[in-house]
């Protein structure tokens, strides 16, 4: 939206569709779901010949206090469908949706049970499961790691899926799980990664936002000193192949892809077509490409890994296995192995 000039013109032609999103504090270039959501919205706009700012736009939040203000700003400028990106907006979407029953809302990564709100959730545990499969296949030491940002319900889905996936391949594999306590502490991330790699872990899956930067930094540094060594990172949300590049090597084994863009574009389209899934929980998983696993790193992500992952992917899609998303489910799953 930060092109030049031109404030959002109010109204326009009455029947033209108008949609917008409110970011959480990450902003539209957070290399994570805000960015992805904005890409989805842009795609949707382009597909439908809408103009940025007039047809589709975003408002940036700098703090939690900004959500309500931004949501209302969009309501007041007659936006038909408003996306709240991230579970942090759930509470406020709920409140605002109650006050403006004629406006449609959608919340990403959370559930808000209101008639005029569509809840978009992802089956991260499925993608994480596959990440676990890949990690276990790749690991030579029999030790892999998981670095989480904060120990929240959402991130637990990543952890549980990952552990389950890994154990499915190698029942005895050791998974070192650590939380940094923050999504914005690369120094802590690096400490944890350093500690894990030191203790023999050779693949780390991170779900830790900016903290993950430290994981990449550590892996790349080790790789630089020891190009033959096994220091792998599994990225999250988007394809983090770029982040893993170091000279001619790349430490990004794969990434768990979460297609927020697909979901956002999808819901926007439905809404424009008069099929807004209000009050529903719309879940995106492996089967509808809402969740996926990257195959960019051709060198590292070998054919046998690919084969194994695809095999498990099919099982998950077919419902032969269900990826666990909580500690309890994980326990149950492990016991069943």
């Amino acid at each position: 939206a930060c092109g030049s000039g031109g404030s959002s013109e109010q109204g326009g032609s009455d029947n033209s569709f108008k949609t917008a999103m409110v970011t959480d504090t990450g902003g539209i270039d957070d290399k994570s779901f805000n960015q992805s959501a904005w890409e989805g919205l842009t795609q949707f706009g382009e597909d439908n010949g809408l103009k940025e700012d007039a047809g589709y736009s975003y408002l940036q939040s700098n703090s939690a206090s900004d959500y309500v203000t931004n949501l209302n700003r969009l309501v007041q400028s007659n936006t038909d469908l408003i996306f709240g990106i991230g579970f942090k907006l759930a509470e406020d979407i709920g409140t605002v949706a109650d006050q403006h029953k004629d406006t449609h809302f959608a919340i990403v990564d959370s559930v808000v049970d209101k008639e005029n709100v569509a809840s978009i959730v992802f089956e991260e545990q499925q993608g994480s499961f596959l990440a676990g499969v890949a990690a276990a296949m790749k690991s030579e030491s029999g030790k892999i790691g998981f670095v989480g940002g904060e120990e929240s319900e959402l991130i637990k889905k990543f952890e549980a899926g990952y552990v389950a996936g890994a154990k499915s391949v190698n029942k005895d594999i050791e998974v070192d799980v650590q939380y940094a306590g923050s999504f914005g502490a690369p120094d802590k991330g690096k400490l944890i990664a350093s500690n894990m790699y030191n203790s023999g872990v050779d693949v780390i899956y991170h779900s830790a936002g900016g903290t993950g930067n430290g994981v990449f930094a550590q892996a790349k540094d080790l790789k630089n000193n020891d190009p033959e060594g096994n220091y792998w990172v599994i990225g999250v949300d988007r394809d983090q192949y770029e982040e893993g590049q170091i000279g001619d090597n790349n430490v990004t084994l794969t990434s768990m892809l979460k297609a927020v863009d697909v979901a956002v574009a999808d819901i926007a389209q439905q809404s424009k077509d008069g099929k807004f899934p209000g009050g529903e929980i719309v879940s995106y998983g492996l089967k509808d490409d809402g969740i996926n696993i990257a195959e960019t790193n051709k060198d590292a992500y070998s054919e046998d890994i690919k084969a194994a992952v695809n095999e498990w992917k099919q099982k998950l899609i077919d419902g032969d296995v269900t990826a666990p998303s909580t500690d309890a489910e994980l326990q149950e799953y492990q016991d069943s192995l």
Partner: protein
Amino acid sequence: MFSSTKFNFIIPIISVVLGLAAGAIIMLIFGYNPILGYQALWNGVFDSGFFMSETVNRITPYILTGLAIAFAFRTGLFNIGAEGQVLVGWIASVWVGTAIDAPTVIHLPLALLAAAAAGAFWAFIPGILKAKLGVHEVIVSIMMNYVALHLTNYLIRDVMTDNSESTEQVKQTASLTNDFLIGLTGSRLHLGFIVALFMVLVMWVILERTKLGYELKAVGYNQHASNYAGMKVGRNIVISMVISGLFAGLAGAMQGLGSFGTAFTNTAFSNLGFDGIAVALLGGNNPFGVILSASLFGFLKVGALNMSTAGVPNEIIEIVIALIILFVASGFIIRWALLQLKKGERK
């Protein structure tokens, strides 16, 4: 000649003008239209009653953290720990607000009290360590901020909820929101501003009218003389920190019982406490000055959200705020320049 009270008003006004002007220049340099930008800023607040009330909601906690810092400064201490005190106050208010059933007359005051007490306790620790062991309050407060951040996150996830990112809404009996105000503005405008304004009076009365305030200031200015006059220096340092923390804790309650009605996990600091430093100093550490500077902060922060509609990145406003603070702080040079101008006129 200007009297010094006149200067106290003129300097902030000139600083705001200079800050906005500098912001305009930066916008021009980078090819944005400052007129549209500032128009959007203005409209961001004054477009409708809704945004004005949101602005008031925003100002409320700023007033309280501003008071917290100002109070400490006035008594010779630097409470850089307001950030953590806000967090613990916030969660304490929500805890009482969700866990207890009681009529409003009891529930709401109790929740506010809990916030104040939590903030006060969080400030008590650096206070007592300074008083008893001479440990610098700044460093302990910085550490306490991090402890508060991690601890409140933990409490929300593992104690107050079952692994959820935010607590339930506080019960209506503990809420600062008010149906009448909500009906009037459609916003979550809550009664917290009354609490904040009341605390402004409280701070003023304590500092300017009470025995306690007299002692606290005396200790802040000169510990030796206070000791000579029979005051208990250590005790006063602790009391000072506790009162300061109490204000900050209440700022947390404004969020917990008012603007949000819940407590949620935080990835990073809210910056209410750090911004409070600027609010306090911009307001000359005077309780009434704090109202004005908090208002300016709230206005700029809310207005800034609308600037993207004019295509202007809202970091511009951060820059403007920072420059305003720099100009106010450099009041001496503005005063000097004004006096030179006056002199020039006379000649």
